[in-house]
């Protein structure tokens, strides 16, 4: 089964300008119940800012602007990117934010949370498939044994 990025992405992306202040970013995060914001410039995602960045920024007083604390740990993907590709990137390169861009337009974002949800569904699908295959196999075996039993012989071959 192939799951595409389009099927698991969150369409409502919470974005912020890179000139916004840390307080604005924190407020937006708390109000929208998200753990990270996508930083946009001229309709292109340029960085992400996470809760950890905000905490670091406000502790060290490096900068009061989002520009000073944001990080580049994100990867722009197409809506056709596969689930397996995203999981590989998450595991190997520890990238947890995937803005989905189609024809230079931001259409959604995939975060670690979306991937966990997708994996849960995937696991359920695997379990159901396994049971279906076992059932079919069980019926076939039962028929096979019946076919060669004396009763089956008298029914099927006179």
């Amino acid at each position: 089964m192939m799951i595409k990025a389009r099927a698991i992405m969150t369409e409502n992306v919470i974005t912020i300008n890179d000139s916004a202040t840390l307080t604005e970013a924190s407020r937006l995060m708390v109000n929208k119940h998200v753990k990270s914001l996508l930083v946009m410039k001229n309709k292109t995602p340029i960085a992400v800012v996470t809760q950890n960045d905000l905490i670091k920024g406000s502790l060290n007083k490096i900068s009061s602007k989002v520009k000073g604390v944001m990080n580049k740990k994100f990867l722009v993907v197409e809506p056709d990117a596969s689930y397996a590709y995203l999981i590989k990137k998450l595991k190997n390169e520890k990238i947890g934010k995937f803005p989905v861009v189609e024809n230079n337009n931001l259409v959604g974002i995939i975060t670690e949370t979306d991937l966990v949800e997708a994996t849960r569904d995937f696991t359920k699908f695997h379990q159901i498939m396994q049971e279906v295959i076992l059932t079919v196999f069980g019926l076939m075996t039962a028929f096979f044994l019946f076919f060669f039993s004396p009763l089956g012989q008298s029914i099927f071959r006179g």
Partner: protein
Amino acid sequence: MAKISKIMIANVPTLKKEAKISDAAKLMASKPHGCVVIVEGKKPIGIITESDIVKNLISKKTNPGKNVTKIMSSPVTNIDINTKIEKANKIIDTKHFRRYPIVQNENLVGLVTENRVVQEINDNIKFHRNIQNAVLILFVIFEFAIFVLYEYLIKFFPFLR
């Protein structure tokens, strides 16, 4: 099935319950775990996540000098170190938290996240399914061959009749 200790993160950042909110923020900024477990002795009594600290940054009610117990989530759902991964998944399914302290005799020994458990189970299931499918396909081919070759087989092995 493996036990939860196989996928847990050891060396969890902890703070005593007397610590201040600013201590928790500092500890969190220096570690990648995204949370701090509040302990009493070695027993986990609460957990503070990055969301709690960010909420605290913008609220005027609680200042960073206050005690961590003011903003921590308590009580926490602990998972015993001998729990099987499948069982842990069931606990996570009913609680819907992200992080769970791992305890041994009520003492904190590690931390496990929802993501790790879900990924581990998925990997296991895929592996099992692949093996199972291979075995099943072999059996089905065997059965089918006997059906097809039945007439020939009874010529050589009359006892099948």
